[in-house]
């Protein structure tokens, strides 16, 4: 099977190169058969890579430990579902996973794109094929990057999967994040195709919009599940540590979010065309940059793959792609001139511009902080890293400004807001913010940033409620519908708009959860059996935790040492909480990794009680614990669900078609003789 896998990789690379060469260097425009052949190249490459994927999975499931990758990431006693996830657990497998998914997306882009954009498809196939050939080339030519590499001997068992990856979060986190990274290639391919074909109206945007939304959604899900995994698995009690690899996933998410807003200006007003192409190119480059960070080891990270020269392939690809893409953009610069002019800074367009400024500003500051160790090493020979304090200092104000704009944007009219419009729109949301502020002050909150954050969440929430309420009421009056039907029809006929508002609510919930993290309390304790420790909750509760003892037992592929605490809140017993040390072993009972820790969490909507069993000082049941009270953490996960619902709503097929591709919209609406309305 490894021979077949190798052959499939070579076939995929050659097909990719052929497809790209045909797309870029042969005049296919006047030869429909050749254009069809190019698009079929995307399907053929997909088929070849699916064969390679099956070959690797077969090796994983048959425990073919002669394959170096199988021996390095699996063992005979590894549960079957982790044999599936082992595919992307290591550098080599994740490269193949990337290539397979990209080939599937490339083929789907050819199949799903409406025929009116047919003239872009050969270029799209060309771009995806170049990226695909690059990834497969890395596997074939990179040092130790081929997943089908064989060992000179066959070990009786494999090393097994890193215990921290043996977690439900890691089943879903890497693939969703990869899906986000990878699917960015499709919007990028459409942007490049539009530039090459000189089809610079809004057609390419309509053709790729759902891909951009899908990328954004996958990235959002991947980041959120990554936060959940970090929280439940790593044991430090937080969700985001500003680690370089974490930051790398945030960069494209930020620029893609900026694009999803600014693209509305292009669709409505024909403006910001250059900016939008630039954002799509930048987002793709940032996804490749993230891959470089993860795989090069150039910046220290707890999430990196093993350091290898593979990263430098990505660096070279990054530079070549950046130069080629921006040169192409430059050559099409005059054709991307705006069709309309901004009339007022106090308009929806203005709010979106500020939103883009904040999002790109945050992306830059995070990128700057991430790259600072490299820059400082280049300047004075020492890698100086900036920690969470730097990122928080720079990004918290920007994030709050962004939250403000999340509420302001929907309230301002397109083109130019009148004072009457502003008054009417802002009264309720402003009151909502002020009531929230007064409530928090009443509860004794005095910290500046949390107060600002919660005030703004109140403001944004009322904005969204107001938008829904007005829309429903208008439909109830115009169509004589009941409230529920009006809501369903309102959302159904304006999925992007109201799905977007639901996403805004998801973002509000994230901010609430982040605000809660500012009030976390923690301590470390050492307890003998039946000894108790107390910890205060920010809400004023007192948790009392009584150590019940440590039990040791064997389970599946590990030995477990479980420490149990009985928990009481304000003197009332609420249950128990268990944290474990796990020593994973191979099928011969030999330890495979250092002991890992499983945290214990008792969670409700207000706060989490988070316990980590650190070990014992003397080999007895005397146990050391880290105990954390984390307010509002659950709202991260609820916010994530809301955000996904909003994203799916936005993407849901059907609904009114936007025909912006074929028309120029100098002005929205009708010319209304106002005198006749008032008569």
């Amino acid at each position, binding site marked *: 099977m490894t021979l077949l896998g190798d052959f499939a990789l070579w076939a995929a690379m050659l097909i990719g190169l052929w497809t790209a060469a045909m797309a870029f260097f042969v005049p296919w425009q006047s030869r429909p058969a050749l254009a069809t052949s190019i698009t079929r190249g995307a399907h053929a490459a997909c088929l070849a890579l699916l064969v390679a994927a099956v070959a690797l999975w077969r090796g994983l499931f048959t425990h073919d430990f002669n394959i170096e990758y199988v021996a390095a990431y699996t063992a005979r006693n590894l549960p079957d579902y982790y044999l599936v996830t082992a595919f992307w657990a290591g550098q080599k497998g994740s490269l193949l996973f990337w290539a397979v998914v990209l080939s599937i997306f490339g083929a789907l882009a050819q199949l799903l794109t409406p025929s009116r954009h047919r003239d872009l498809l050969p270029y799209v196939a060309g771009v995806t094929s170049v990226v695909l050939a690059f990834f497969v080339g890395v596997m074939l030519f990179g040092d130790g990057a081929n997943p089908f590499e064989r060992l000179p001997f066959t070990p009786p068992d494999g090393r097994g999967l890193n215990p921290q990856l043996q977690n439900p979060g890691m089943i879903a986190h890497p693939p969703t994040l990869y899906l986000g990274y990878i699917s960015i290639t499709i919007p990028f391919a459409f942007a490049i195709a539009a530039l090459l074909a000189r089809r610079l109206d809004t057609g390419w945007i309509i053709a790729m919009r759902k891909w951009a939304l899908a990328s954004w959604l996958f990235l959002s899900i991947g980041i959120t599940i990554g936060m959940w995994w970090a929280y439940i698995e790593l044991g430090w009690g937080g969700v985001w540590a500003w680690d370089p690899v974490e930051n790398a996933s945030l960069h494209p998410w930020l620029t893609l979010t900026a694009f999803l807003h600014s693209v509305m200006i292009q669709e409505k007003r024909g403006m910001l065309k250059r900016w939008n192409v630039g954002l799509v190119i930048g987002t793709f480059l940032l996804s490749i940059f993230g891959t470089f960070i993860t795989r090069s080891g150039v910046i220290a990270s707890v999430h990196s793959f093993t350091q290898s020269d593979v990263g430098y392939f990505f660096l070279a690809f990054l530079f070549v792609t950046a130069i080629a893409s921006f040169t192409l953009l430059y050559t099409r610069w005059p054709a991307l001139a705006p069709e309309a002019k901004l009339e007022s800074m106090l308009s929806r367009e203005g709010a979106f*511009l500020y939103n883009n400024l904040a999002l790109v500003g945050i992306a830059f500051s995070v990128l700057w902080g991430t790259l600072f160790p490299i820059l400082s090493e280049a300047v004075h020979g020492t890698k*100086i890293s*900036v920690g969470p304090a730097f990122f928080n200092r720079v990004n918290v104000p920007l994030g709050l400004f962004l939250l403000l704009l999340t509420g302001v944007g929907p309230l301002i009219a397109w083109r130019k807001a009148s004072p009457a419009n502003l008054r009417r729109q802002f009264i309720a949301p402003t009151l909502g913010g002020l009531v929230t502020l007064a409530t928090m002050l009443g509860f004794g909150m005095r910290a500046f940033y949390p107060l600002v954050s919660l005030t703004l969440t109140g403001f944004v929430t009322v904005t969204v409620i107001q938008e829904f309420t007005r829309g429903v009421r208008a439909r109830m009056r115009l169509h004589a519908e009941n409230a529920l039907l009006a809501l369903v029809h309102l959302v159904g006929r304006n999925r992007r708009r109201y799905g977007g508002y639901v996403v805004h609510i998801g973002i509000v919930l994230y901010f609430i959860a982040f605000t809660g993290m500012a009030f976390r309390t923690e301590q470390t304790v050492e307890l003998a059996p039946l000894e108790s420790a107390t910890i205060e909750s920010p809400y004023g509760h007192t948790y009392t935790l009584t150590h019940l003892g440590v039990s040791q037992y064997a389970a599946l592929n590990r030995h477990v040492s479980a420490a149990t605490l009985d928990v009481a809140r304000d003197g009332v017993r609420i249950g128990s909480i268990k944290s474990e*040390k796990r020593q994973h072993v191979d099928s011969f009972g030999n330890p495979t990794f250092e002991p890992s820790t499983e945290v214990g969490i008792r969670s409700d909507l207000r706060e989490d009680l988070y316990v980590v069993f650190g070990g014992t000082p003397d080999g007895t049941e005397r146990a050391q614990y880290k105990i954390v009270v984390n307010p509002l953490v659950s709202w991260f996960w609820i916010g994530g669900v809301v955000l996904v619902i909003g994203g799916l709503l936005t993407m849901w097929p059907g609904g009114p078609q936007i025909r912006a591709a074929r028309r120029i919209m100098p002005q929205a609406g009708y010319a209304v003789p106002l005198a006749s309305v008032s008569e």
Partner: protein
Amino acid sequence: MIDRRALVRGALRALPFAVAVRSLGAQEGGASPDTLQADLLRDPSLLGRLRDPASEYDNDPVVVSIERRLRCTCGCTLDIYTCRTTDFSCTFSPALHREVIAMVKGGQTPEDVVAALVAREGPAMLMAPPARGFNLAGYLVPGLVMASGALGLAAWLSRRRMAVAADSPGTGAVTSPPLPAPDAEQMERLRRALEDVES
């Protein structure tokens, strides 16, 4: 010798008493009269290396604040406090913790402790590098870029507005192609919608 199951059963039976004692003011983290003798584990090696015994300095705000300013030298990118309370296999952070405690006990101020460790390990040990020299760029560049972006955006918007004004002298309105006139039904719907919005 009490086996594990007997210990847990005993613990559960003793729980109400323990809660009562606690409510009367049992000491935080301290030994109370009803605690059991900690039994030896069947296989302590399954928990990894033995931990240093807890000390009153483990949660000391001064010690914690010092440790949060300094990076663990194991290469994990975490600060000393987070590393020693998270990565229980790390041997660097417990050793650094002992050093910090020793220096604090010896009467050194937090600044002295940080300076001593940075002098030995290098400036890379600081979680937040001092704002001087090239490090200043680390702190200032994001703000400068944002300010430049905001100024650029304002200048661009201002130029656009002037261009709009120049396009339509006298009225300030945008030149647009003729617009379709609404029919009677649309006018009626608009009127009702406007009424609704106004209400």
